[in-house]
């Protein structure tokens, strides 16, 4: 159906646009959020890296301070300078406990290991395991480094034992284990791992990562040599981490690095939630727009459908309906115009019908009468009825002889002139033209529209006709035709009504009065208007008439008195 598809089209277009806009917005926002999150994490990682470096340095400094304080302890100096190895060891252990270190060693100026709290036994003249540290300390006064002992990483500091000149080197160390990593994590909010680059890849020293993630990190981290200061994304297990690798130092076992990480997935979590929310909103919006679209489409197409329906009815000829549309917009305007058009069509139809009727009536009646009849709107007036009417018959004297001898064109011309002369008078006096046959005319008054003075009208009309035709007679005479005009007027009851058959109806008067009028006309000489007694009685005041005797007329038993109207004295222009 046309409308259904139009409706669907609206919905589809509407929806399509909305989907496109929402999808575009959704993807743009998603992409921006992800990019933003990554940038943010990279920054956080850089900051975290700085914090971490500072923390390591702070720890080293703290270690060094503790060691320095220790080295000033007089009793310690005294114990250390005694050659009693056991005493030295127990003093070391005591002081290690004081500062909470994990290892304390004493190295002689000859780089021999005098005491070691980790490995309490051992050969007497073993070499100090970190000669480079001591060498550096001799240069700079003290030194710190990261070193591995038994596979564990330690931050160690070497300070001189002064008595008052350096008599030995005190090395204090803190182990780097998971606790340290967790501590650093709590401050930097990053995953912290300490790794050693051994042959065959990374070894884990300490980490905040749990279980399988540790192993995954060892596998996932790129080669030990590529330790740069830029963060990059590393896949560990199923998660993605932004990773920063910081070098802490070289030991005999390999380089030691700190790996700082931030879970990209965790950091993108709020962004993901936002995405989901956006998706939900988009979906909701879409749903609302589907409903809205359908509703609007209906609202738009319904009036159109109504209009189409109306148009169809008008097509069929049913003008009497209107489209009920109450909108104030363009559609409403269209409907209003449509209604006007329908009304206009209906009006035109009605007028046409009326004109038809008028046209029909105008055949018999003067235009005024016809209008009157149509406006009265009652065609029952044409039904059979009885009324007293005044009938006027008139014709041309000598017409038959003329028609016989003259050319048809001449005859038609004469008739035309004759009709042009008498016709208007009929209308003027509002008579009803019953028929005209050639030169003969029958007009009656007081029907169908009653009038007050039918006789007077008839007589005045006849008089004028005589006058008009009289002028013509002279003309015709000059042309060589001898014609005269005679009128007969009678008054009486007749039966009037429509006669004929479907397709051709006529309005006729049947009665004695018509006969009388016709006979009087035939009796009239040229220029005579013969009226019946009755008529004469009615027009005595306005017409000058002479008696014309009692005439014996065919069809009448008794002779009929007639009068000839000479002139009409009172001329009233109706």
């Amino acid at each position: 159906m046309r409308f259904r598809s139009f409706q669907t089209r609206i919905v589809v277009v509407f929806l399509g646009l909305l989907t496109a806009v929402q999808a575009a917005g959704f993807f743009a926002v998603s992409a921006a959020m992800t990019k933003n999150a990554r940038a943010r994490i990279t920054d956080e990682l850089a900051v975290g890296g700085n914090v971490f470096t500072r923390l390591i340095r702070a720890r080293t400094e703290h270690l060094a301070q503790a060691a320095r304080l220790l080295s000033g302890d007089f009793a310690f100096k005294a114990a250390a300078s005694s050659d009693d190895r056991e005493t030295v060891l127990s003093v070391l252990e005591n002081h290690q406990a004081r500062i909470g270190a994990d290892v304390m060693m004493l190295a002689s100026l000859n780089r021999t290991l005098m005491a070691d709290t980790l490995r309490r036994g051992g050969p007497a003249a073993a070499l100090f395991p970190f000669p480079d540290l001591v060498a550096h300390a001799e240069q700079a006064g003290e030194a710190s480094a990261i070193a591995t002992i038994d596979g564990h990483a330690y931050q160690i500091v070497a300070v001189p034992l002064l008595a008052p000149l350096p008599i030995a080197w005190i090395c204090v160390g803190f182990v780097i284990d998971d606790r340290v990593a967790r501590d650093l994590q709590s401050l930097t909010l990053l995953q912290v791992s300490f790794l050693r680059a051994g042959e065959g890849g990374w070894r884990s020293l300490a980490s905040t990562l749990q279980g399988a993630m540790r192993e995954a990190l060892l596998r996932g981290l790129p080669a030990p040599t590529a330790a740069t200061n830029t963060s990059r994304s590393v896949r560990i297990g199923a998660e993605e981490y932004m990773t920063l690798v910081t070098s802490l130092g070289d030991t005999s076992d390999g380089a030691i690095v700190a790996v700082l990480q931030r879970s990209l997935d965790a950091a993108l979590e709020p962004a993901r939630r936002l995405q989901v929310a956006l998706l939900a909103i988009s979906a909701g919006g879409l749903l609302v727009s589907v409903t809205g679209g359908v509703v609007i489409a209906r609202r738009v197409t319904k009036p159109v459908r109504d209009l189409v329906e109306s148009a169809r009815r008008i097509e069929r000829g049913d003008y009497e309906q209107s489209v009920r549309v109450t909108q104030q917009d363009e559609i409403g305007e269209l409907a209003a115009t449509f209604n006007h058009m329908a009304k206009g069509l209906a009006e035109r139809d009605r007028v046409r019908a009326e004109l038809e009727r008028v046209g029909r009536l105008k055949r018999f009646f003067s235009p005024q009468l016809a209008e009157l009849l149509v406006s009265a709107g009652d065609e029952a007036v044409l039904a059979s009825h009885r009324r007293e009417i005044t009938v006027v018959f008139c014709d041309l004297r000598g017409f038959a002889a003329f028609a016989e001898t003259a050319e048809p064109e001449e005859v038609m011309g004469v008739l035309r002139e004759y009709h042009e002369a008498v016709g208007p008078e009929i209308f003027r006096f509002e008579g009803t033209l019953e028929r005209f046959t050639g030169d003969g005319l029958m007009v009656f008054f007081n029907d169908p529209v009653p009038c007050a003075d039918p006789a007077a009208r008839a007589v005045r009309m006849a008089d004028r006709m005589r006058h008009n035709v009289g002028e013509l007679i002279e003309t015709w005479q000059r042309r060589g035709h001898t014609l005269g005009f005679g009128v007969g007027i009678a008054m009486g009851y007749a039966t009037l009504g429509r006669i004929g058959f479907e397709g051709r109806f006529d309005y006729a008067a049947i009665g004695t009065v018509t006969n009388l009028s016709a006979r009087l006309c035939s009796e009239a000489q040229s220029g005579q208007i013969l009226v019946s007694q009755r008529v004469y009685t009615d027009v005595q005041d306005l017409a000058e008439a002479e008696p014309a005797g009692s005439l014996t007329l065919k069809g009448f038993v008794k002779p009929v008195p007639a009068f000839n109207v000479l002139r009409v004295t009172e001329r009233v222009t109706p």
Partner: protein
Amino acid sequence: MLESFAASRCRLCLVLVLSGCVLSAVAFASRAPAGTLDAVVKDAEGRPVPDAVVYATEASRTAATKPAGAVIDQQDKEFVPRVKPIQVGTDVLFPNKDNIRHHVYSFSPAKKFELPLYKGVPAAPVRFDRPGVVVLGCNIHDWMLGYVYVLETPYFATTGSDGNAELNDLPAGAYEVRVWQPRMRETGEPPSQRVTVTGSKAGRVEFLIALKPEFRLRRAPIGAGDRYR
């Protein structure tokens, strides 16, 4: 800690003619002439070296005289003199000339002792009866540093800031002259030279020694940061 006397051997050319008068200051010495020995100590760049102990050991015999007492002051929170050579068996007094107490100590193997916080003059002196270097410190003033060089021979002198030292009243004879300075690089034997002292002319020895960088703590009070050096 024992300072080993390893020193690099350096050969010098002897340009001196010893002449001098022999001094008979020593009681046991029955020699009539007593000589003087002038010593000059310079470092590798030719600069004079102060606080260097030049000592002469008699080749033939060691003197057996009871040494007199020695004094090492504590003045203005420093040991005065900074380097004090003494003979084995000397009693050394450590008077405290400051108005604050000091706690003198040493952990050197040659003499381990301490004088806990005291003012004025301690009751008893400290006898140094073993040869060697004794490094003195003060427990409450980390920068206070002093050296006592315990020698077996009574013939020694310390160079001044000009790097010169004069050994007087040396009985004539042959001597091994050596030098020791706290900052001296010790590799092998300490440098020694043979000198014969006569009564007529003063002998002269010159030593060129290599020095280690000085290790001195900054005097307190100082700003923040307890840095050595």
